[in-house]
């Protein structure tokens, strides 16, 4: 039971990151290497906003993380990504690597790389059959992740903006010719992706800790996205589950110090056997 709970919660953390990576890839054909940093900074912002409000209400930190995501998403797209049209694809990737470095420095400067755990002030644990304990934070993680994916599904499937989003991802020129402001849609993609990342960062900060080292969850999220296939949201969840299992088993059966290396090893294996991922489309590969 214990192991199942751990795997489920790790899966949630990684799936949220992977979903953002997939959305960004689908919308703008960009692979974001700053996703782990964005997640952790989102977690820090949540924590600090909580401190500022005196820890009395959850609304304040939530609003803080949402505002952070909106500003960050708009800024990254409008000020940086938008200007890279016509440049080779690796330029955008290098820019995201740069964003990651800047964010990491921000953690050092603003939060002094303080290692801290987010405590939303709920009773720590409830006992489960089989001797496992689950905190309310864990339950909230699962509920929020499921809600996020359900919301995403409903948005893409049933709203007009969601349909326009999918159309823009396929053919930005035609979308524009049908009256859709492509810059708005792509900014929105960044905002949604960073929102998911921040949520992931908060969940991770609640279970483990926030620090400059924890940005490595970005690699786990990226691996999950690649394992599932970069252009598939379903694949993101499946990939996250596989990465979580592999990491848990390695830590348990081999050596805990390997836990950081697992996503990377998995990445190498998937890339050599099935480079387009489990749910991805093969043709997509030519574009990368």
């Amino acid at each position, binding site marked *: 039971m214990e192991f199942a709970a751990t795997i489920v919660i790790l899966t949630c953390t990684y799936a949220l990151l992977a979903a953002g990576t997939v959305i960004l890839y689908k919308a703008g054909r960009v692979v974001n290497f700053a996703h782990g940093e964005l997640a952790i900074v989102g977690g820090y912002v949540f924590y600090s906003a909580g401190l500022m409000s005196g820890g009395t209400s959850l609304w304040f930190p939530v609003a803080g993380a949402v505002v952070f995501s909106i500003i960050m998403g708009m800024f990254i797209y409008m000020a940086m990504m938008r200007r890279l*049209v*016509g440049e080779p694809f690796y330029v955008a990737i290098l820019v995201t690597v740069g964003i990651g470095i800047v964010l990491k420095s921000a953690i050092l400067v603003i939060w002094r790389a303080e290692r801290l755990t987010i405590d939303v002030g709920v009773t720590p644990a409830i006992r489960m059959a089989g001797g496992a304990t689950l905190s309310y934070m864990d339950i909230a993680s699962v509920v929020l992740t499921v809600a996020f994916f359900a919301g995403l599904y409903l948005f893409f499937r049933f709203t*007009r903006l969601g*349909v*326009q989003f*999918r*159309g823009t991802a*396929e*053919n*930005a*020129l*035609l*979308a*524009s*010719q*049908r*009256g*859709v*402001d*492509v810059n708005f849609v792509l900014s929105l993609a960044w905002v949604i992706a960073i929102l998911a990342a921040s949520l992931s960062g908060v969940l991770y900060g609640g279970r483990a800790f926030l620090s400059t080292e924890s940005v490595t969850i970005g690699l786990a999220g990226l691996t999950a996205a690649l394992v599932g296939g970069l252009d598939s949201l379903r694949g993101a969840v499946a990939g996250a589950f596989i990465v979580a299992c592999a990491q848990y088993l390695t830590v348990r059966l081999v050596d805990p110090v390997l836990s950081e290396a697992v996503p990377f090893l998995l990445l190498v294996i998937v890339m050599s056997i099935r480079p387009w991922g489990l749910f991805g489309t093969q043709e997509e590969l030519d574009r990368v």
Partner: protein
Amino acid sequence: MTDILLQVRQLEVVYHRVATAVQGVSLEVPKGSIVALVGTNGAGKTTTLRAISGFLPSEDAEITDGDITYGDRRINGQLPHQMARAGVILVPERDKVFGTLSVEDNLEFAARGGGEITLERVLGYFPLLTQRKSQLAGYLSGGEKQMLAIGMALLCRPTLLLIDELSLGLAPIVIKDLMALLHRISKELGLTVLLVEQNANAALAIADFGYVMEGGRVVFYGKASELISHPDVREFYLGGAAQSETKSYRDIKQYRRKRRWWG
């Protein structure tokens, strides 16, 4: 005297800062009319339409000279979505529908709501789309895609409809029906249409005015009925000369010399 809805003056478009695709193109589209733009491959027809409907920054295309006036506004260098919202809607030559979306979603994508063009009305023009509603647009046949593309364009509430190669890849009988339908739609909805066509005969049959392009320039223009009976235009663009005897290469060279350059 008729109002001019769209006026293009001395248009010059350059791709990738080096390749000049059209040069000194001028044309006028009167309100409520159908204007055909015909010409050989690579003549610059698509480029002219694209310049009117707007380029994305990523396309690296630039209007380097001339003016495009829509109503009383100069619209050089507007983005496609700005033109679309102003009522200038292009049905492009390729990639005209979203292949990964269902037919229904394609139509919903475009629907702006309000106005007299409703989904029911569009499905009335193209009843076939009703049967294909939940199918992915990528799996439609060429003719069905064309119908969906026009349906989408109509739902964007166009004032000026730009159509690039209505007949591309369609059977002659389908082309005839589609042309007739387009004529009917434009009259019923009071649309102004600028129609680019390879199939000059079919286009000039429903058009009020025609322009003939070659090598990035306009080489003939006039009333559609006059163009159809013009011997040079027949010889070079409508397939087959007025007289039936086969011409030698030298005669064709003479026709080449006789052609005048406009614009």
